[in-house]
């Protein structure tokens, strides 16, 4: 603060890089943050998955209830978020595995694979909504 005050107007014109609306994220950064977001969503869904496992094995009626919840309940269309998270996370994860193994880490390929990961997630979400619409 003191140094800024001493520098006066010059300090005030320094760019601040904390304004998220002003930062232009490269596509790799977008794929990366979405990998995190989708991962957290998948981790949160793990206890729900255990509940679905229990219910689906309890009885044929329990199995039907799980299928009904996933395809015909009021929240079934919202599971497009889950479809997105799963597919994006798998694509972005396989992308990382390839990079770890020494493939596709150069910028052009890395940008292409980042785009493919993002697109695959969006396509999966749209397919889920389409399947729900046509059910």
């Amino acid at each position: 603060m003191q140094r800024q005050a001493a520098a006066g107007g010059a300090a005030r014109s320094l760019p601040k890089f904390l304004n998220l609306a002003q930062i232009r994220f490269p596509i790799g950064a977008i794929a990366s943050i979405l990998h995190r977001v989708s991962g957290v969503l998948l981790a949160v869904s793990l206890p729900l998955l255990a509940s679905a496992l229990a219910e689906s094995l309890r009885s044929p009626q329990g199995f039907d209830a799980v299928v009904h919840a996933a395809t015909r309940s009021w929240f079934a269309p919202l599971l497009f978020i889950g479809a997105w998270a799963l597919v994006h996370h798998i694509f972005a994860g396989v992308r990382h595995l390839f990079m770890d193994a020494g493939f596709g880490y150069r910028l052009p390929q890395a940008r292409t694979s980042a785009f493919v990961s993002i697109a695959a997630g969006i396509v999966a979400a749209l397919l889920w909504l389409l399947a729900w619409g046509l059910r």
Partner: protein
Amino acid sequence: MRVFSGQRAWLLQRFSAIAILVLLVLGIVRLAMSDGTAYERWHAIATSTHGVVLILAFFLSMGLHGWIGVRDVVLDYVHAPSLRLPLLAVIAFILVAVQIRVAMILLGQP
């Protein structure tokens, strides 16, 4: 725990990721290759010995992979030790509880 940090965590994250992928593909192929209604197929797999082992392995891989991922997220964004440690403890408790629950579901079936 040391086993779940540093390079070991990095390796475990990769190996569990590969395990999850392989088990997912195996599960889809196995479901597609069996006969009967959807419930009959699913029930036959989930009550067979190899099915129980594979589903347990799937949830264990998901739990380990999820732990490393969520731990990384917490360490990156939650800095106050008074918040970070209880949060990590709660997450670890939930993930372990899920493992126990899945084991009870699969091993407690008639």
